[in-house]
């Protein structure tokens, strides 16, 4: 049976992981390759590396890092941040990334999704959507939730799917960082409406939250950062917990 995926997300600034970690057994927790390797050994199913600097000069640093990740890690990984055009996608795939995630650039220029799918296949294109609940419903936001757009979550997710995105990475800005669980109702709506996998993001604080994202939110994968980085939820323990609940999980 196809397993539900657990995906740690690493934020990268100038080639280093930010937000620190408390892994005592790592020589250099700031090195994304070391941390990625550790997660992979612990049973992470995929990894996401987000370049949060992505200024023009720093893109080369990130590309070099992607090459090192590809050489050292034996599970699939997605990279995002600073992807504006097809050239950026090509550069990162060439460096060894398996998938790229596009967010703001796709909202500003939706054709980018068609171009990625056409040139490299849908499977490499992850459409990342940040959304918040407003009076009119779930609205898409840019720049980490600071800039509202005229796009609504469900219609935009549909459009991404039609244009050829291979997966939707949905982050609820209302739930992100609050550690009270994922936006399960919206997740379920997305998952039941769309024909591509949905990755839940934003809100993980306890093992039960992952269970709910899968059972109530019908998510195909769940992504989290701090609960993994700070060792609050060790991945082996999380996966055993989900497995005991008969959720299909790779152990």
């Amino acid at each position, binding site marked *: 049976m196809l397993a539900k995926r657990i995906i740690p997300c690493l934020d990268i600034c100038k080639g280093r992981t930010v937000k620190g970690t408390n892994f005592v057994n790592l020589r250099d927790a700031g090195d994304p390759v070391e941390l990625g390797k550790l997660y992979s050994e612990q049973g992470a199913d995929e990894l996401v590396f987000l370049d949060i600097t992505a200024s023009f000069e720093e893109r080369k640093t990130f590309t070099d890092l992607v090459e090192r990740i590809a*050489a050292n890690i034996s*599970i699939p990984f997605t990279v995002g941040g600073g992807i504006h055009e097809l050239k950026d996608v090509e550069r990162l795939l060439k460096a*060894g990334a*398996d998938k790229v995630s596009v967010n703001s650039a796709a909202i500003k220029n939706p054709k980018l999704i068609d171009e990625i799918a056409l040139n490299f*296949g*849908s499977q490499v294109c992850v459409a990342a959507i940040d959304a918040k609940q407003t009076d009119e419903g779930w609205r898409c936001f840019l720049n980490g939730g600071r800039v509202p757009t005229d796009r609504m979550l469900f219609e935009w997710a549909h459009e991404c799917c039609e244009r050829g995105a291979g997966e939707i990475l949905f982050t609820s800005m209302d739930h992100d960082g609050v550690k009270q669980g994922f936006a399960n109702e919206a997740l379920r709506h997305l998952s039941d409406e769309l*024909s591509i996998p949905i990755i839940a993001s934003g809100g993980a604080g306890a093992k039960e939250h992952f269970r709910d994202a899968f059972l109530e939110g019908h998510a195909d994968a769940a992504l989290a950062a701090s609960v993994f980085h700070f060792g609050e939820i060790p991945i082996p323990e999380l996966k055993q917990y989900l497995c005991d609940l008969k959720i299909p999980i790779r152990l």
Partner: protein
Amino acid sequence: MNIAIVKYNAGNIHSVINALGRLGVKALLTDNEEELRGADKVIFPGVGEASTTMEYLRAHNLDRIIRDLKQPVLGICLGQQLMCSRSEEGNAECLGIFDVPVLKFNPQRHEDKVPHMGWNTIETDGKGIFKGFDKPEYVYFVHSFYVPVCDWTAAKTDYILPFSASLHKDNFYATQFHPEKSGSTGERILKKFLDI
């Protein structure tokens, strides 16, 4: 050991080179007939579209070269599909090493999303590249077309229906999944292939 990887217009070839590198093996990426024939093992990886890839292989005479190889050959993902008789993807005439067609997944329920992407279990015959495998193991898949279960099925996976996760016939081995992206299980499989 002298390992050659077939160089052609497919994506993701470097991830195979990287995976071999992690096993301490340096592979030669080539489309040269002598080099391919002279290698101890040949790997035929690939991510791409069947019909355009077959056109490329034919134009470069690689279809004949691959078909005639005598040493152990491992096809991966699109590589496995191209080793079959034909593919529904672009109605491609393929290499015909395995006399079985490649079909498109036809989802029956909403949960059956296509492509089949992620970690799924394989049930193997415990032979060849799966020597020592005695229980189902998780490996990583990304594909929209599949090879039905047939006489040459070496491993099976159930998604929408049971299909061939791996094929084996004489010196030809193939996997629908990506051993190069399947963590330690994938490494074991690649090692077994290198040890054949």
